[in-house]
């Protein structure tokens, strides 16, 4: 049994009533005994899980989240539902996951999935053996316009930053801003920024400004240390703007680009609490991707 499966099973055991626990145990045993390859009862059980397991968040506590990170660095089940966890246990119960037959079985399941199933399946991909085999499939999730699906594929998982090629990775980052997903929750973002991604982000900044629209605060995350002169100018303009979340993000962005002087100057005249907090944090060296969390969803 994989460590991830054991952990999820433990989390569920503590949360499920006897009847749901029994259903899951029976279903997992049935899955374990299936012949390799697509179809059979597997997709039906993945569907039926929605009727057998309770609604609601998994809500792992800090200790449990720590255990998850220990099983797989970058995996964070904080936003998982109980149903996601149950379905992941079913997927991880398959005996053929290491083989081509297992890949085909999952692909078949993806192609027949509903919205909730897509979310659960995408969340499970990083827990599979040799998850880079599912890079294309995860990329499909990141191409989705359904935000729940995008997030399940892109966020709280180490798979994209490890397995995506440069093109798919950069599309994922920019797309997060388009669908309004939390870019700060894309694992490994800070470790995989580059000048090309910064250029794409700055082109988008120009496009937004030309259209008279605000720049989403998290878009500045994509610059990192690759802002360059163009990025610095765009950030300073945002820092001088009349929108506090924009000033907050620009301060963090400038600090990420190693330009603290304009942030210091801005702090001296700032009175918005959100922007002040971000500026102080930026000056104190706390400007990694997680520092953008309070700015998510502000537009």
């Amino acid at each position: 049994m994989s460590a991830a499966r054991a952990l999820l099973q433990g989390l569920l055991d503590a949360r499920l009533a006897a009847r749901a626990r029994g259903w899951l145990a029976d279903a997992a045993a049935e899955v374990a005994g299936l012949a390799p390859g697509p179809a059979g009862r597997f997709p039906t059980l993945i569907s039926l899980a929605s009727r057998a397991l309770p609604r609601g968040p998994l809500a792992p506590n800090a200790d449990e989240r720590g255990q998850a990170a220990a099983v797989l660095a970058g995996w964070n089940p904080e936003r998982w539902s109980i149903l996601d966890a149950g379905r992941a246990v079913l997927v991880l119960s398959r005996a053929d996951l290491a083989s081509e037959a297992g890949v085909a079985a999952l692909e078949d399941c993806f192609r027949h999935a509903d919205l909730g199933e897509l979310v659960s399946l995408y969340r499970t991909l990083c827990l599979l053996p040799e998850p880079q085999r599912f890079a294309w499939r995860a990329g499909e999730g990141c191409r989705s316009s359904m935000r729940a699906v995008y997030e399940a594929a892109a966020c709280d998982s180490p798979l994209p930053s490890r397995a995506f090629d440069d093109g798919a990775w950069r599309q994922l980052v920019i797309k997060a801003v388009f669908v309004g997903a939390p870019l700060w929750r894309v694992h490994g973002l800070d470790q995989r920024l580059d000048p090309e991604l910064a250029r794409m982000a700055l082109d988008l900044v120009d496009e937004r400004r030309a259209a008279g629209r605000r720049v989403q605060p998290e878009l500045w995350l994509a610059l990192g240390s690759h802002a360059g002169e163009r990025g610095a100018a765009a950030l300073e303009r945002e820092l001088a703007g009349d929108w506090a979340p924009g000033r907050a993000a620009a301060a963090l962005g400038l600090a990420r680009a190693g330009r603290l002087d304009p942030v210091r100057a801005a702090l001296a005249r700032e009175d918005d609490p959100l922007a002040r907090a971000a500026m102080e944090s930026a000056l104190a060296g706390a400007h990694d991707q997680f520092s953008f969390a309070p700015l998510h969803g502000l537009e």
Partner: protein
Amino acid sequence: MRFFDPHIHMTSRTTDDLEAMARAGVRAIIEPAFWVGQPRTQAGSFVDYFASLVGWERFRAAQFGIAHYCAIGLNSKEANDERLAAEVLEIVPRFAFKEGVVAIGEIGYDEITPAEERAYVRQLELAREHEMVVMVHSPHRDKKRGIRRSIDVAREVGVPMQRLVIDHNNEETVQDVLEAGAWAAFTIYPHTKMGSERMVEIVRRHGPERLIVDSSADWGVSDPLSVPKTAQLMLERGIDPAWVERTTWQNALDAYAQSGQIDVEALTAAPRVDQRALYHDNSVLRGQAPRVDAAVPN
């Protein structure tokens, strides 16, 4: 007022429609699988179609504060392409038990052929085994005979009448359906067949018991606001508001909530559009222009 339109093909409708529906008070809809105007030539087209009913269309409707449910089935027209039909009938069970699937449907007769009957019976059996509601499409030609036959066959297969909804009724067929103990749905067509005015008189004559009003709006000339418009006309013409509520909201809810797939409490609570709204309490559905905490006028 709030409305439940239990038969509408959103695949063919635009976001303008969704916006207008939400504004008019449509809070919940059911999108039954039907034919898409042009015959499909391969089973894969059905896979993608069914998948859109349980995924994309649900997502789209949610953007406008409308709860989207669906019915899955092989329609009667395409049942006549028997090679294709055999493949599609294998696919139906893969989608029929997913979340938010409230019925097997729309199934039944079009030309009342043996091939249609075989597909109908197979799907009735599936519904009986899994205690599902059945949404029956009645034929436009030879309707009275078609409806009688759909009821008789459903009864022979063993589908309980309280789980049978016969759609596209008119003055000539309603009595048969009500006497059988099934639900009688009426599609309000803007120019032909059943109009709102006729519906008012049917409700006046038969009372609200087991009568359901729907739009069946699709890719043809049809009106996604048929249900609220008919409700308005009923009120104007002196139908008891409680009857209006039953025929445009409660009866559809009662019929399809038998599936266990409708969270009645959540649906009955005053909805608010939050395009960041939770999906299964974790992930979020949202479009490009989030509207948060906007009251839905229904």
